[in-house]
């Protein structure tokens, strides 16, 4: 081993260590920023080390690509709203998957051009990372389009869908086998790319908006695996280690998310959950199920809150859509000034990606020690005077505990109905993202405060301050 090989090799080792340490530091909000910086330093070291690689003979394409790509990434990262974070992550993830597929495609062309006949252990990783990277690329773009509401968030289904998907999958596998068995030709490879891109699109189309946290997490792990396999193709240990770390973590998160919804991964991917919307946007009067719904005024609710000892706030994505998080923060501080104990109950799938709600509340300056995970807060609802549900629906739906034929039966929920009083802030009686009726609204303990979440919370905050 010469010095020109040893030094980059050691640099890549340092990168791998920094990535692992960085992820380790992410396990606490106190050290998380250090973790991200460690990973960043690791990335810079890897890029600098690569600059000395003897395989690089021309710089124009590298510099051109970097000069175009880096500002796009940076500017969109600075401008994106925190509510749009899931689709931003989906886009960056798709970019990574696409890059992995392109790198493998480039390596394939390079091998062909070198004239030697590629061996199966050279071709296998190239083909695999092209497939996984392409699926991740096109799948992420569909996920982005769904979350950005460029297309319907409802599952898109049609007769024979699973058969069509199976045929595309067989085409991908068949063409790959054809190539690996010695038909090493560009048209076969191009066929694999096209079929894989199609597979990504068709695979994500039938998945509903409510399941996007699982899908983004899964696609993230796909890109990780694609990068790791690219590492096999390029004989790059640092790609193998980094990609695998991401693949493993993404898989773990995906399983956690599926568990939080009491669904198997297969059910999420193939179940077309929430396909049939039950009723549309109904007015406050059209109470679902015919039960009586008690509606309250902001003044009543504010008085009750102001004279409580403990209040637990259960926020959902509706809060973020109404941009009410800053008003919620103000309400919480006004209550605390009166000596009321305020806690936030965060469901693991609140928001549109794992942990999304915590980010939205952190943005509104809610201290992280006020945010409580579901398992920790659920036993505390019984002692709470008021549970304030803001823009959350399915994650508080008691049907998940008691109605065996409900689509969400068995999903762990926030036990808001165990509190002495429940106040639900809601725009109307329309069903939630998953399209399911919520018996919580008809509970005698429940008061509904209809209206825009931001307006309602601002009124509550002002009335509590005045009370």
């Amino acid at each position, binding site marked *: 081993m010469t010095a020109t090989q040893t030094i980059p090799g050691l640099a890549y080792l340092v990168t791998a260590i920094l990535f692992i340490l960085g992820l380790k530091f992410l396990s606490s909000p106190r050290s998380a920023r250090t973790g991200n910086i460690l990973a960043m330093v690791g*990335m810079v070291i890897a890029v600098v080390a690569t600059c000395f690689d003897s395989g690089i003979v021309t710089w124009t394409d590298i510099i051109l690509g970097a000069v175009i790509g880096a500002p796009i990434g940076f500017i969109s990262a600075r401008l994106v709203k925190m509510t749009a974070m899931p689709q931003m992550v989906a886009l960056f993830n798709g970019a*990574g998957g696409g890059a992995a597929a392109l790198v493998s495609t*480039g390596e394939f062309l390079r091998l062909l051009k070198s004239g030697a006949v590629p061996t199966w252990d050279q071709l296998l990783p190239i083909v695999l990372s092209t497939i996984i990277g392409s699926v991740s690329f096109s799948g992420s773009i569909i996920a982005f389009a769904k979350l950005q509401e460029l297309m319907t968030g409802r599952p898109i289904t049609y007769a024979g869908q699973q058969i069509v998907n199976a045929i595309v999958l067989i085409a991908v596998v068949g063409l790959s086998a054809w190539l690996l068995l010695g038909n090493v030709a560009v048209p076969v490879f191009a066929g694999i790319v096209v079929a894989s891109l199609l597979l990504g699109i068709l695979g994500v189309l039938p998945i509903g908006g409510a399941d996007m946290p699982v899908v983004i997490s899964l696609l993230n792990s796909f890109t990780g695996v694609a990068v790791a396999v690219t*590492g096999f193709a390029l004989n790059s240990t640092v790609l193998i*280690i980094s990609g695998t770390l991401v693949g493993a*973590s993404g898989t773990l998160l995906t399983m956690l998310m599926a568990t939080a919804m009491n669904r198997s991964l297969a059910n999420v991917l193939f179940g077309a959950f929430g396909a049939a919307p039950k009723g549309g946007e109904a007015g406050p009067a059209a109470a679902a199920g015919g039960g009586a719904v008690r509606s309250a005024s902001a003044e009543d609710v504010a008085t009750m809150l102001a004279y409580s000892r403990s209040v637990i706030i259960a926020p959902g994505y509706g809060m973020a859509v109404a941009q009410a998080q800053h008003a919620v923060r103000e309400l919480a501080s006004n209550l605390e000034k009166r000596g009321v104990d305020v806690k936030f109950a965060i469901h693991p799938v609140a928001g549109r990606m794992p942990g*999304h709600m*915590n*980010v939205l509340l952190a943005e509104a300056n809610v201290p992280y020690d006020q945010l409580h*995970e579901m398992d920790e807060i659920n036993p505390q609802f019984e002692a709470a005077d008021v549970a304030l549900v803001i823009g959350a629906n399915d994650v508080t739906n008691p049907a998940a505990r008691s109605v065996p034929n409900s689509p969400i039966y068995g999903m762990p929920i926030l036990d808001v109905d165990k509190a002495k009083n429940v106040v639900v802030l809601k725009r109307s009686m329309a069903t939630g993202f998953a399209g399911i009726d919520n018996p919580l609204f008809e509970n005698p303990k429940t008061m509904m405060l209809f209206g825009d979440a931001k307006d309602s919370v601002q009124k509550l905050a002002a009335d509590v301050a005045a009370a």
Partner: protein
Amino acid sequence: MTEHFLMELTVFVLAIFVGFEVISKVPSMLHTPLMSATNAIHGIVVVGAMLIAGAAIGGTIGHVIGIAAMILGAINVVGGFAVTERMLEMFKGRTENRPR
């Protein structure tokens, strides 16, 4: 199976265990930054993009693939880290909380 491939396979399998081990300790509060950070880490593919874009594969298609890989890789890595940093700087405890 070459010796080299076997070595890479070993690294791959060990990294799976490290990945599971390290991530299982992250609280759900930090899952979004975690996902965004791992998203940035798979931006390491930019290293592969540099090797391909710099390899002078030749032909229009060679240039297009190299430049496109670099663009996508750069978006992934720069955007990923920038957005993670933006999120994490918002996480503050009760004592260090400064109203804006």
